[in-house]
């Protein structure tokens, strides 16, 4: 109509000045607005790096000290007490259990309740006085070579120095007794024997979490939740329907990893395969329940991924997979006890490398069941039956 109207179309068809920057800027402004609205993402931006840094910085210790140790004292003598005191003074050992039979001693090591066992044989002091050089047995759970290695390596020299004063023997070079260190379960200290079983749990944690963490948010984002909620289905039924298919998927995945571990990496399965299968299924279900719980808490799929990440990273760091569990500070160990991977790693190492029986694994099995039930309860109560 007016003159300007007829001129404009020509102008509009031409590329505006700084068009590239204007359009990029428009996109950038939009992204910032969206980022600011997404509170959870915003929190994650701060939480993930801070949490990782604190965990790495404080919790990880590759030369662990104060490792739980059982003592089997078959002789109560001054010398025996001095030897134990000297061992404790090395700071590597912390005596947590005193046992009275070899069976009990073996059981503690096998169940992973202690990492070391020290046995002082009967007639120890007399044999030393006689100059017979009796043997002092130090057995180590070497499934994790890192945890056991440094303690065993320094054992001889440190004890000798510590004892020199106590025993009043002028010339330290001659040890009055022999320390027989016995690295059980993984005598050659091969790290793959330790890593491969741990990987079974780590890989399963990652894949299982992500399978279910997206499940409820996906229904909400695609709009199918409205229809689902208008039909007669209960929260528990939705949960079971969403978890069970992935239990099978997880089982196939676990078989694959264990199979490759055995065939390619030569990791043994000393214990019962059926027991391993049963407890692996429990572990898979626990992780799926936790993932499903996340999906009932978060608002969208991005948040679900972030939450899975928040859970996965501490699982790797605090479960004993990468770094010795016993070497972590107490607060980190408590956190670790709340992670299913911690318990499964103990279970899988115990069954594959130590040939553990169900009785050795009671605590960790119960822990997994408890974690699973807690997750399921939260999920069912969090699941909103209305669109309110």
């Amino acid at each position, binding site marked *: 109509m007016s003159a300007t109207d007829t001129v404009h179309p020509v102008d509009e068809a031409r590329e505006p000045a700084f068009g590239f920057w204007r359009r990029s800027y428009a996109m950038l402004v939009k992204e910032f607005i969206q980022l600011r609205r997404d509170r959870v993402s915003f929190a994650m931006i701060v939480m993930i790096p801070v949490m990782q840094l604190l965990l790495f910085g404080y919790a990880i210790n590759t030369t662990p000290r104060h490792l739980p140790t059982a003592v089997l004292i078959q002789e109560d003598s001054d010398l025996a007490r001095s030897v134990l005191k000297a061992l404790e003074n090395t700071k590597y050992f912390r005596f947590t259990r005193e046992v009275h039979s070899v069976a009990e001693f073996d059981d503690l090591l096998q169940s992973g309740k202690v990492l070391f066992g020290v046995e002082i044989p009967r007639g120890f002091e007399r044999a030393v006085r006689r100059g017979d050089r009796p043997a002092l047995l130090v057995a180590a759970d070497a499934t994790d070579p890192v945890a056991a290695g440094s303690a065993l390596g320094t054992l001889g020299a440190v004890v000798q120095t510590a004892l020199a004063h106590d025993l009043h023997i002028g010339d330290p070079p001659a040890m009055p007794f022999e320390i027989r260190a016995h690295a059980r379960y993984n005598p050659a200290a091969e790290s793959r024997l330790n890593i491969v079983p741990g990987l079974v749990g780590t890989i399963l944690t990652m894949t299982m979490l992500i399978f279910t963490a997206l499940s409820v948010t996906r229904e909400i984002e*695609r*709009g*199918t939740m*409205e*229809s689902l909620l*208008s039909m*007669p*289905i209960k929260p528990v039924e939705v949960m079971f329907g969403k978890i069970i298919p992935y239990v099978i998927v997880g089982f196939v995945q676990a078989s694959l990893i264990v199979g490759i571990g055995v065939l390619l990496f030569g990791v043994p399965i000393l214990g019962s395969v059926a027991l391993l299968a049963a407890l692996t299924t429990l572990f898979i279900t626990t992780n799926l329940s936790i993932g499903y719980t996340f999906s009932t808490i978060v608002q969208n799929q991005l948040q679900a991924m972030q939450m899975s990440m928040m859970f996965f990273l501490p699982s790797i760091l605090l479960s004993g997979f990468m770094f010795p569990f016993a070497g972590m500070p107490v607060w980190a160990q408590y956190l670790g006890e709340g992670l299913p991977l911690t318990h499964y790693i103990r279970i899988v190492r115990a069954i594959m490398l130590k040939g553990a029986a169900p009785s050795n694994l009671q605590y960790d099995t119960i822990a997994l069941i408890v974690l699973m039930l807690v997750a399921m309860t939260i999920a069912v109560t969090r699941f909103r039956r209305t669109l309110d």
Partner: protein
Amino acid sequence: MSSVSTTSAADIAIKVDGLSKSFGGREVVHDLSMQVKRGSIYGFLGPNGSGKTTTIRMLCGLLTPDAGEGTCLGYDIRRDADKIKRLVGYMTQRFSLYQDLSVRENLEFVARLYGMRDARGAARDMIRRIGLSGREEQLAGELSGGWKQRLALGACTLPNPQLLLLDEPTAGVDPKARRDFWNEIHALAAEGLTVLVSTHYMDEAERCHEIAYIAYGHLLAHGTVDEVIAKSALSTYTVSGDDLNGLAVELAGKPGVDMVAPFGTSLHVSGRDKSVLETTIAPYRDKRGWRWEDSEPSLEDVFIDLMNRSKDNFQ
């Protein structure tokens, strides 16, 4: 209670009283009461954001009312949501079946959820009924708008509900598909099903046995189409002739003229006070070849007027 009231209670599919619902401090539905007879088609009309969807969701237990009470098929909408869900088919405004499942798989899923014995057979019969034979294995997400809507209707009628809640089922669907859809709705109602359907289309409102008009969360009018028009007390003149645009601009805002709306080649001039309206239009009545006709307001006139008035009252 007399025998009369018990029989009438059995004839009522939906009866709600004083329903209210707020979201984030904004009241979306205010003190809404309504009754729907069994076997009838009840049209639910109103502008966008008027509270239609919210009301429907409260009826089928997807939302909890802040205040008010009511029954749906004789069950309490607050306490018996589980029972109501078994007997009600709800068709959502946005397609909410699984886009990555095929037509057959979607229907079988619904049939299994309702615990139907022969889920496959039920799905097969429904595919035939909604005319999707030959498309059973097509993914729902790949269907066109009209087919999606048929599938959605099929899914919500599959478990043999007694009440259908349809939330703008024909939005974005072509006229032919809309007509087929309404024929199906009437067929279902003839079988005894009660249908509550929300819509924007006036022609669809006229296909309902009864209608209710809701704006800003308030129920403003209800009854048959004729009753609603009669109750409106709106006077309308239809003008035909040249330069109706000019006339519309001139009349707008004059005393007694509450609404001026073009309808094709004619103009509807309406007012609530007939005598004032007549005084205002008198000078124009014999001018420049315009033909004035004292006519009935259309349903649309009535609704727009109700909406304008409610805007004054509630906003």
